[in-house]
């Protein structure tokens, strides 16, 4: 049986990298005495997989992992047991039972939504709002993306689903592709947008929060993005 666990991560915990978060949760499962499943073999490991790795320095309100369990209690029990052993800055938001045929967390990720604000003393010195429409109205947004295999040119446009600016809060909201094949880092979009505006974005300009991670229950042409835990149920 598989559970999908949603958690948030903020404060100093943003400096804990992805691999260390996995190690953290492995220990947390033991502390909370969750009846997690183990692989067989000489050194058994927990059945646990994460949805979309989060870069160091980024906070998140919607991280997901799937775990296998050997017995079921209730959503509330697992959630409380885990929350009792969390450190400050990590909170379990929901625990859902996945249907038998559910796709795993990693491959079901389609998009992620980010809020981007500006580090003190790094607020943009230009009208950030002004050119978003022009930017998005381009026929193509050609950029060079660095990958493990080298750099390649791609069109960013189909990967940006929403891009807006809240003048009052001085916050950018960005919904972008987060699938394993087309994952787009939010800062990457910001940098390109700055370039479009004739500016250069600095390394430490942005404070990024991932608002949630989504799967697509619509079609490729008409996507319908829902949070990853939408597919599971309380039990």
């Amino acid at each position, binding site marked *: 049986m598989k559970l999908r666990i949603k958690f948030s991560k903020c*404060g*100093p*915990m943003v*400096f*804990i*990298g992805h691999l*260390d978060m996995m*190690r*953290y949760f*492995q*220990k*947390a*499962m*033991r*502390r909370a*005495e969750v009846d997690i499943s*183990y692989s067989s073999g*000489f*050194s*058994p490991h927990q059945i646990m997989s994460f949805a979309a790795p989060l870069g*160091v*320095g980024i906070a998140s309100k919607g991280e997901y992992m799937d775990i296998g369990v050997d017995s079921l209690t209730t959503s509330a029990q697992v959630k409380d047991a885990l929350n009792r*052993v969390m*450190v*400050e*800055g990590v909170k379990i938001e929901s625990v859902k039972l996945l249907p038998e045929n559910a796709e795993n967390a990693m491959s079901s990720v389609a998009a992620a939504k980010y809020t981007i604000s500006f*580090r003190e003393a790094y607020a943009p010195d230009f009208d950030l709002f002004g050119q978003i429409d022009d930017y998005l109205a381009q026929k193509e947004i050609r950029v060079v993306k660095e990958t493990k295999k080298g750099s390649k040119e791609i069109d960013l446009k189909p990967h940006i689903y929403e891009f807006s600016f809240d003048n009052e809060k001085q916050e950018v909201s960005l919904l972008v592709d987060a699938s394993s094949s087309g994952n787009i880092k939010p800062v990457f979009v910001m940098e390109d947008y700055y370039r479009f505006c004739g500016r250069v974005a600095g*390394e*430490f300009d942005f*404070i990024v929060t991932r608002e949630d991670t989504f799967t697509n229950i619509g079609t490729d042409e008409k996507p319908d993005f829902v949070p990853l835990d939408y597919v599971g149920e309380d039990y």
Partner: protein
Amino acid sequence: MLNDEILLKIEKPARYIGGEVNSVMKDKEKVDIRFAMCFPDVYEIGMSHLGIQIIYDMLNRFEDTWCERVYSPWTDLDAVMRKENIPLFALESQDPVKEFDFLGITLQYEMCYTNILQVLELSGIPVWAKDRFGDDPIVIGGGPCSYNPEPIADFFDLFYIGEGETMYRRLLDLYKEMKTAGRSREEFLREAGKLPGIYCPSLYDVAYNEDGTIAAFAPRYGDVPATVSKEMVTELSDTYYPLKPVVPFIKVTQDRVVLEIMRGCIRGCRFCQAGQLYRPLRERDVKVLKDYALEMLKNTGYEEISLSSLSSSDYSQLPELIDYLMEECNRKKINISLPSLRIDAFSLDVMSKVQDVKKSSLTFAPEAGSQRLRDVINKGLTEEVILNGAREAFEGGWNKVKLYFMLGLPTETKEDIEGIAKLSNEIAKVYYEAVPKEKRQGRVQIVTSTSFFVPKPFTPFQWAQMSTKEEFLDKAYTVKEAVRNQLNQKSIKYNYHEADVTVLEGVFARGDRKISEVIYRAYKKGCLFDSWSEYFDNDLWLQAFEECGVSIDFYTTRARSENEIFPWDFISCGVSKEFLLREWKKALDETTSPNCRQACQGCGASSYCVGVCTEEKTGVSK
């Protein structure tokens, strides 16, 4: 807290943010004493140390005290802190160390000495104890190196000699009392220096002979004790133990539950300082340990547990404990990481159950290459025992062996050194004899490593002359050559290290107060993280010695007379100088001594009236 920008720029920011599982937060307004406990090395090393976790846990159980952790900032952050004038802070509150009442520094190895100065300087605490005043934290050292604190005495206000569990409460009470009464720093230090196990360097005067040796070492005041005796836990099953140790976010060197099964060692190898310092051997009750194991696993979520002690095979309840752990851990899918055990039927059986035989290796530490030299150092491991153990293991499927030796031991000859290669070869031979061709998984792999011998205080070899760097390296080449001449040379891999660091360790180990100036200078020249080979700079050290007019040979290669006053003689670790001298003479006479379970050697530690000293003796068998 460091700002985001710094944290994003430096390596492994998790070293500095605190907030780990089981770290202790308190309201600083509600405590009387703030204690910063420092391990002067990088976080991953410091967090792996059991001693610190014990003291941290104990101090935080005191309601009036908040103990927090401090580690050496790595070089990247060190540079940022200096450039931006950021004071060193403790992990829990992220408050500057300078605001604390105490800064405790654990001294686990000599090569961390420059890091002590880094911690002091970054904290904004005067490096020299004499320059501190008023509200500066009381800087107190502890741990194995404090058994000869003299090379760093001038940097410390106090040293705690011995096991930390016993005297801290009284020290803290005294501090509180005197602070409330409005007494000065000096008055407190003077009173603290009278507590058992507490050494206050500024209360003692040293006079030197013309040849540089010590003429007299005495307290300045009549009410300050001339001898400082180590503090020791008498009942290990009934003391503090960190059942909720702090669990780091990042991988550290010792990333598991650590169960300390006993303290002390019965063996009395003559080169070994730990074997003398922690006498007498005291065991922890096996029932207590079983409970601790389960509770700690539950509280930490670790997937691995290890046992810690000297010579673990000597723990009398080991089979019972290991059986229990194997059963529990198997059920809970937890790994057991075994300490190095004497190779026999029992340990091979256990090892085959908890490790992958094909991947794991056998470990032997004969320490010397010939029986003659093993008698000198009182290492009771015979060639026969090693070869039999190896044979049994090879038959059980093992084909990797690690061997540890020392070079530069007293009375060592070329034959002894070549014996290292010969013994390695014999083991390989046993493999080819014991394992038929069709069952072999390739060659047997023997990894032979040598370290260089450093004479340590409170050992029978404290009188010994240490080799020079050139001699050390010659000896290593001799081994290398000898390995090449063995029939099974292709199965033997030989490792040795550079000798520069060893020479410095030799100076610090038996150094006196004159060394502190050298350490200070070396630090000022940029020496830091000296135990990290990529940062160790021997030339800077040599310059520092030269500029201070301090001779390295005086501390290392010089012959010491039987009645020389050693810098550490004012400390009593329970073992008498007469006993050590007896053992030194027996060593030169190539005579062994039985272990504490066989027959008492009257070392002096029986004055503590505990542990193995109170057991009935078996007599020497064979």
